[in-house]
């Protein structure tokens, strides 16, 4: 297998160039997918026979929850790459992913609470999945706080990488222990998981939304990373040339 692309990722300049080419494509994909999924899911898809129209918040809730979990895993992978190959881009990706992941976890919790009121009759129940998502939000807060507390940029990146890797080893343990705890304390739990199997007119918009959210994440992450790279490499000549070209005046 040809590994040149991987070695090239070590160069911020190369990454800046290639991400500039991906960005328009990903943005268009994100807008199209989200627009199609939202219109289909919120307006066209049939109402649930039990929950009525309130189930439609699922089209935001489920993609956000998906993304919150996979962003944490991707952060741990970035952390491992950063620790092993000392790759700056991986450090940047890790630290710039954390706020997006925290927002996704927050959105998932918020929509979950709003959805819970008509469905369960309470904004918050100590359901296993809700609790696991809350813990995930706390893990994101920890990484963000650690990254901000350490002033040296490289130390901060490596500390966050270690914490992300430790966290990702813990996540399965946390998830299963929380599920176990829940079955211990509330035998007759609310069964969010045992929904009637969805017809295609309901899950296709959901799939579109999930893909759209992933594209949205990629777009936001690339934009944040590009900004951070410009900030970090601000002394190099290529960044100066780039900024001069973008703003039209000497930096």
């Amino acid at each position, binding site marked *: 297998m040809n590994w040149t692309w991987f070695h090239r990722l070590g160069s911020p300049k190369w990454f800046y160039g290639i991400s500039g080419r991906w960005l328009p494509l990903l943005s268009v994909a994100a807008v199209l997918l989200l627009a199609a999924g939202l219109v289909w899911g919120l307006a066209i898809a049939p109402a649930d026979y039990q929950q009525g129209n309130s189930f439609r918040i699922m089209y935001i809730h489920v993609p956000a929850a998906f993304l919150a979990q996979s962003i944490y895993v991707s952060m741990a992978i970035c952390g491992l790459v950063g*620790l092993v190959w000392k790759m700056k881009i991986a450090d940047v990706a890790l630290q710039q992913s954390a706020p997006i992941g925290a927002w996704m976890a927050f959105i998932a919790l918020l929509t979950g609470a709003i959805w819970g009121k008509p469905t369960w009759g309470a904004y918050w129940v100590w359901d296993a999945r809700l609790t696991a998502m809350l813990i995930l939000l*706390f893990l994101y807060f*920890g990484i963000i706080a*650690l990254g901000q*507390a350490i002033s040296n940029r490289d130390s901060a990146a490596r500390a966050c990488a*270690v914490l992300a890797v430790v966290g990702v080893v813990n996540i399965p343990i*946390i998830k299963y222990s929380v599920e176990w705890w829940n079955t211990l304390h509330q035998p007759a739990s609310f069964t969010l998981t045992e929904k009637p199997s969805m017809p295609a007119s309901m899950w296709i918009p959901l799939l579109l939304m999930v893909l759209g959210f992933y594209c949205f994440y990629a777009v936001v992450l690339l934009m944040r990373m590009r900004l951070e790279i410009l900030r970090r490499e601000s002394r190099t000549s290529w960044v100066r040339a780039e900024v001069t070209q973008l703003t039209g005046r000497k930096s």
Partner: protein
Amino acid sequence: MNWNWGSKRMGKVFFLLLVREARLMFRRPGELVNPLVFFAIVISLFPLAVGPESQLLRTLSPGLVWVAALLAVLLSLDGLFRSDFEDGSLEQWVVSPHPLGVLVLAKVLAHWLFSGLPLVLLSPVLALMLGLPTDHIPVLLVSLLLGTPILSLLGAVGAALTVGLKRGGILLTLLILPLYIPVLILGSGVLQAALQGLPTLGFLLWMGSMLMLAITLTPLAIAAGIKISVGE
């Protein structure tokens, strides 16, 4: 990294570190007592807050003992590496020929012996005050014996990452408390099960395997954290 356990020297270094830690601890006996007093005070806050009704306190006792123990361990962890960091011992550890993972394991073991183990020994008294039946005390002891080393090991990861920071204390709790949740769930779960007359062995085996996992993996993370903090 050469993990040569067979060599006499590594074992000797491990032992010498333990003795050093013990000597340092006994020169400042106040630090030994502080987590214990904290543990006792937190436990006695709960009856004051929720009322002295014995049935309620008995139901709550597994959770209360575990939460208080967890907070006491966390409190004692803040200073785990601090003095070694300030006087330069940690740097010597990093440049020494011995694997850093083994050295930190000795450090964490010493910490557990002098702050975790006394908590375990004190816990039956406090649990009895909360109304936990006497025949469940052995289960409580075993669960704390298996659980508190995990708390020390996981907490040491956070302590290693934050040792170089001026105000590491609150950050440490933020980093570590989410990771403590499985131990808390299993630890109080085993007592809940005992109170309901259910078998407890499965929980204890789970905790034992988590302890093995923690002993195996966390020294690597602690060592990485110390290298980052020292290198800064």
